[in-house]
């Protein structure tokens, strides 16, 4: 990877250089926090860091890190986030280019390898790449622009205020003299980066790229011509190919194996075992039997010929049907950990004029990125080079370095395009596997590929949950009491042995932060044990929490004889700003509660906008209905209306989905739309067809015939996204990648209820509508 810059030459660090750590090591240092565990990484007397500052290695904004300009004027912008379709390789460079006054056609994008000390935090997750990096990238571009202006002013011996950077050149306004950026680059590179206070950011009214509707994508041309390089496409001279037969059960091990037949398969080179890390295995490999061959097909065929005897271990009896019963029993009893409590919900329920209760179930899901996990590694002269579609290249680098017993600066993780992430590729297990296999092959380059079966059997699955809700209404149909219990194995189970309740960040993903005006509110989290690896899957616990609460609100509205939209708005109460700390939600997505209070006005606005656009309340033909849901997640406000038609045999047609989104200032409106369109389809898959079940400890779905996802014929005919513009670019940005998912399942089930009067509380829908009544 050629990172030569003309602003600052980048030289490889000499080996053995001691690295100063800028952050104190935290107990879970190096942990890919995904959504950030509060309270770690800083001493008690230091002020709390929020947002991008609070992430491991924080933010960087120096053009000397991110920008280089060649003599011909080509501007190279380094992107420190992984591209998985959310458009970071398009949006982040546009921010820099805009402030830099660069001609976008002369800007090239360079992908940063994993190196957070240099590039700042590189965890591409939590819907926060643009939200955290908008300001730093503006400062970076502005600083570079000012350095070019300064260089020109010095070259011409004129006052600084007489020069102005415009579209890839600096102009001396009085005389009209001009110099292109290429001609000024070397001189500019010798200057100091201007201090932050002296940076002149553009007036947003003069933005050329930020906020403009431009569907062009940096990688569009290579994607449509097949020149795209995803992790799985990596090719190196002399490369071997490997697949691994992994234990099918959490904590399982190889008891014995017979490779005789496998070794006879043409192209197979070697078969050996890889030790797995017993649970909690974090991002370490689970081990298994490795087959190395001369091409992928030979490796797959070789693995098919293996005979393996598995020691399944303690989770070998995990059965998701039985477990569901356990979870449902747990949430039907009081006594779980109380995570929010206002007033006296039990008393208010007991005294309520009307009571309602419902139970909701959401199964395990698999990420099922179209590109299965794959990574390529080689070790040459004591240095390991990796190419991987990683969402967390620093975390991958750290773990590989540790496993190979190398200093971190001897490990390079090159980030390729990702064929989908959704959180799967934040976990470095597949990268560590590749490195270990290469090591076992004396450092020869090895591409380690997961097949679809591997991917569905050994995912870090979305957790499974059972939820129980109760509401009490007074004589006027107003909600006076609300009880919500949720039992779900925690993500922390991959980090710590046998945790039983949800971490603050999981509670803050749609459970505790309910912004509704309810005088007696109680939320409980009964215990649940993990029997499989659990991980972050696009919008994470919001999926089940929004499904239950937004479905239940609609059920309560119906029981109260009220229009759902009116009821929801009434429940939201008067416009106000809520300090999340006051409602037992201190995590607040890692953001400052002052900067990001929960605004009920903004939630109201998206509800009003989406219902207006969907013409809420219009009369529909029989078996057709509209359903509404609204949810605040990743500091963004979202509301959706799904229009559904249900055939007499229970088939769904979705003519239209409307989504209104308030994510603050917009950088790339078309990518915001596309992310929400895509999130809608993903939400629909989860609502209608997707499910991972377990028997005998094993995930039962092998491929897409069993783990289904929505296809074109079942997708909505139209998805219309309504963007609520922000008042100003000084407003903080909200997340975009994930918030579009949680509103979809409840909106759909609310629509189905409106259409045919059937309430679906258990996902996926599958054939629940065609089952005999």
């Amino acid at each position: 990877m050629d990172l030569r810059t003309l602003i600052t030459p980048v030289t490889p660090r000499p080996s053995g250089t001691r690295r100063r750590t800028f952050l104190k090591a935290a107990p879970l240092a190096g942990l890919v926090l995904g959504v950030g565990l509060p309270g770690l990484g800083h001493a008690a007397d230091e002020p709390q860091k929020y947002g991008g500052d609070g992430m491991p290695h924080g933010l960087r904004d120096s053009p000397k890190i991110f920008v280089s300009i060649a003599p011909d004027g080509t501007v190279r912008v380094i992107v420190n986030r992984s591209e998985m379709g959310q458009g970071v390789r398009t949006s982040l460079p546009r921010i820099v280019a805009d402030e830099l006054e660069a001609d976008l056609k002369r800007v090239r994008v360079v992908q940063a390898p994993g190196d957070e000390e240099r590039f700042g935090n590189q965890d591409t997750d939590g819907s926060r790449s643009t939200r955290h990096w908008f300001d730093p990238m503006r400062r970076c571009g502005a600083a570079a622009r000012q350095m070019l202006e300064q260089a020109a002013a010095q070259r011409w011996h004129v006052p600084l205020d007489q020069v102005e950077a415009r579209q890839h050149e600096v102009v001396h306004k009085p005389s009209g003299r001009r110099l292109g950026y290429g001609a000024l680059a070397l001189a500019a590179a010798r200057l100091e980066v201007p201090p932050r206070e002296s940076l002149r950011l553009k007036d947003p009214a003069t933005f050329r790229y930020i906020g403009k509707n431009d569907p062009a994508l940096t990688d569009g041309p290579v994607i449509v011509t097949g020149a795209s390089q995803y992790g799985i496409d990596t090719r190196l001279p002399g490369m071997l190919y490997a697949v691994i037969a992994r234990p099918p059960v959490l904590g399982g091990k190889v008891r014995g194996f017979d490779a005789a037949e496998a070794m006879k398969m043409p192209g197979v080179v070697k078969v050996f075992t890889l030790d797995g890390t017993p649970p909690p295995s974090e991002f370490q490999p689970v081990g298994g039997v490795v087959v190395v061959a001369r091409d992928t097909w030979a490796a797959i065929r070789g693995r098919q010929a293996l005979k393996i005897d598995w020691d399944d271990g303690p989770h070998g009896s995990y059965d998701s049907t039985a477990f569901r019963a356990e979870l449902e029993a747990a949430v039907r009893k009081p006594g779980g950990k109380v995570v929010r409590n206002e007033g006296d919900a039990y008393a208010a329920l007991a005294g309520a004029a009307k009571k309602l209760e419902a139970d909701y179930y959401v199964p395990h899901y698999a990420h099922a990125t179209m590109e299965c996990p794959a990574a390529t590694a080689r070790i040459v002269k004591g240095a390991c080079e990796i190419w991987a579609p990683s969402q967390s290249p620093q975390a991958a680098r750290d773990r590989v370095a540790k496993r190979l017993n190398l200093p971190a600066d001897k490990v390079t993780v090159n980030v390729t395009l990702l064929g989908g992430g959704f959180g799967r590729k934040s976990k470095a297990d597949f990268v560590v596997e590749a490195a270990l296999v290469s090591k076992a092959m004396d450092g020869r380059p090895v591409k380690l590929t997961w097949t679809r079966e591997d991917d569905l059997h050994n995912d870090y699955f979305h957790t499974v949950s059972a939820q129980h809700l109760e509401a009490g209404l007074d004589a006027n149909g107003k909600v006076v009491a609300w009880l919500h219990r949720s039992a779900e194995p925690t993500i922390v189970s991959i980090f710590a042995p046998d945790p039983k309740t949800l971490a603050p960040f999981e509670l803050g993903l749609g459970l505790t932060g309910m912004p509704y005006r309810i005088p007696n509110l109680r939320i409980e989290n009964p215990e649940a044990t993990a029997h499989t690896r659990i991980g972050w899957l696009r919008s994470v616990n919001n999926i089940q929490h929004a499904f239950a609460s937004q479905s239940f609100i609609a059920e309560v509205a119906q029981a109260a004889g009220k229009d759902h939209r009116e009821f929801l708005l009434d429940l939201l109460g008067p416009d106000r700003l809520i300090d999340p700390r006051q409602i037992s939600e201190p995590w607040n997505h890692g953001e400052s509660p002052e900067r990001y209070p929960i605004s009920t006005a903004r939630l109201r606005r998206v509800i009003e906008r989406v219902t207006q656009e969907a013409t809420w309340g219009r009369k529909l033909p029989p078996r057709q209905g509209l359903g509404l849901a609204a949810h605040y997640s990743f500091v963004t406000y979202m509301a959706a209306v799904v229009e559904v038609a249900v055939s007499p045999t229970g088939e769904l047609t979705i003519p239209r989905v409307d989504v209104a989104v308030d994510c603050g200032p917009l950088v790339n409106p078309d990518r915001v739309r596309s992310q929400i369109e895509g999130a809608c389809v993903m939400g629909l898959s989860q609502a209608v067809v997707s499910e991972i079940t377990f028997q005998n400890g094993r995930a039962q779905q092998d491929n897409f015939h069993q783990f289904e996802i929505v296809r074109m014929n079942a997708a909505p005919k139209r998805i219309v996204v309504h963007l609520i513009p922000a008042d100003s670019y000084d407003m903080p940005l909200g997340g975009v990648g994930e918030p579009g998912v949680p509103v979809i399942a409840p909106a759909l089930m609310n629509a189905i209820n409106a259409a045919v009067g059937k309430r679906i509380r258990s996902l996926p829908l599958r054939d629940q509508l065609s089952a005999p009544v």
Partner: protein
Amino acid sequence: MTSLQINGKSMKVDAPADTPLLWVLRDHLGLTGTKFGCGMALCGACTVHLDGAAVRACQTPLSAAAGKRITTIEGIGATRVGKAVQNAWLAIGVPQCGYCQAGQIMSAAALLQQNPTPSDADIDGAMSGNLCRCGTYTRIRSAIKVAAGQKGDA
């Protein structure tokens, strides 16, 4: 040694006759534009054309591909329809992660080559074998219509 006609060029490959064309293309010939998604013809990521017809390369053994005119994503742009599809994809901003799009484009090009004015039902029929986990279906549908010279949807 098997001789293959790929994108108008003759290529030789030494692999067992039952090797899926997908892996011949990717691993033996270095044509990685055709993608692996499932290995069971359930996802369409591996779609190529054999004598103009869309097939799943993961289920096409090398022996079946020999003697046929093979077109991959790397070559489809040389055709009028293929180029129109690629241009429409870019104009509408279809791709998100992009991994499925080679297969989507190949299926769309095959559809339009046979049916220049497809209806929504025709599009569903031709394209529902191609999965997109990022959910770009509405834009794919729009882009197909644009490539066909029809007005795309919102």
